[in-house]
């Protein structure tokens, strides 16, 4: 832990702290929504620790809360989380070996991956990845449990523009990579394809389709 702290520049530490704070607030609304949909506290609590992937948890709560089958909801959630496989392929060895790899893989999420990609060398990538991953591991369940306990006391957090924070955090982290012309073209192609597919496909598939489309259009050779 001490070495994670020392390896990261103060600015990066502050950015990760802000990101975790935003995750905490989103967790707050997640817990409140879960309880309002008729789930007992342990459901968002267990999911936030064991699944630790917000979008799929919201989807699970939404499907089951509306009367859908929990197994169908889990499969829909898995589709949303399939992007973690290519995320893991994209990162150099940030997780480590043995139990570290178990925990390190578990804390893989959009934010920790984006923070790792934004750093220059392996030690900094590793430190940023772990700091953000562990921070989210604390803040997401913390927010979810507090939101579930507070229940209806939690007002609509969207009123404060919190729903704009998640895309803004990711965008801020990938902008340096997008300054590369070819990457930018591929990313824009992928985004357009994913957006066009969103009304028609189940959640999770549009992102994967966007990647496949971008690779086909721009070509793997150009991106390599």
């Amino acid at each position, binding site marked *: 832990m001490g070495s994670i702290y020392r390896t990261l520049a103060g600015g990066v530490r502050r950015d990760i702290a802000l990101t975790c704070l935003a995750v905490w607030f989103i967790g707050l609304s997640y817990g409140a929504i879960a309880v309002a949909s008729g789930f007992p506290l342990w459901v968002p609590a267990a999911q936030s620790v064991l699944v630790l992937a917000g979008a799929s948890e919201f989807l699970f709560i939404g499907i089951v809360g509306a009367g859908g089958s929990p197994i169908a909801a889990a499969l829909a*959630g898995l589709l949303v989380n399939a992007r973690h496989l290519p995320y893991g392929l994209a990162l150099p060895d940030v997780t480590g070996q043995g139990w570290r790899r178990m925990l390190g893989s578990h804390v893989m999420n959009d934010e920790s991956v984006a923070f790792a990609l934004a750093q220059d060398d392996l030690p900094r990538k590793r430190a940023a990845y772990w700091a953000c991953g562990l921070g989210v591991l604390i803040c997401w369940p913390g927010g979810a449990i507090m939101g579930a306990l507070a229940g209806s006391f939690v007002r609509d957090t969207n009123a404060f523009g919190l729903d704009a924070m998640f895309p803004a955090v990711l965008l801020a982290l990938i902008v340096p990579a997008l300054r590369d012309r070819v990457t930018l073209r591929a990313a824009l192609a992928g985004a357009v394809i994913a957006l066009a597919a969103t009304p028609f496909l189940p959640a999770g598939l549009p992102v994967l389709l966007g990647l496949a489309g971008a690779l086909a259009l721009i070509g793997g050779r150009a991106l390599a």
Partner: protein
Amino acid sequence: MKDTTLVVAGIITLSAGTLAFRLAGPALRQRVAFPPWAEHLLEAAAVVMLTALVAITALTKGHGFAGLARPAGVLAGGVLAWRKAPFLVVVIAAAGTTAVLRLLGLP
């Protein structure tokens, strides 16, 4: 709530499957030595997916349009990020713009 056993089974399925996805990437990276061009391609692939995720979470809600306030906020953040504004400024500006627009009655 529905049958508790089924919900527990659903949560276990989702957690175990998600962990499998998360373990697969690092395990493969450890076993196979990728040439530098492949590593670069895989990193670009992650950036493409994150960009697609930004577009979807900024512009859509469920299968429909998210309204104007959120995309406008994210756009403001994006412009600031492109002009190399600090992370904190980007994120606060995005949330602030969205909040102010909602306060003004925009969806």
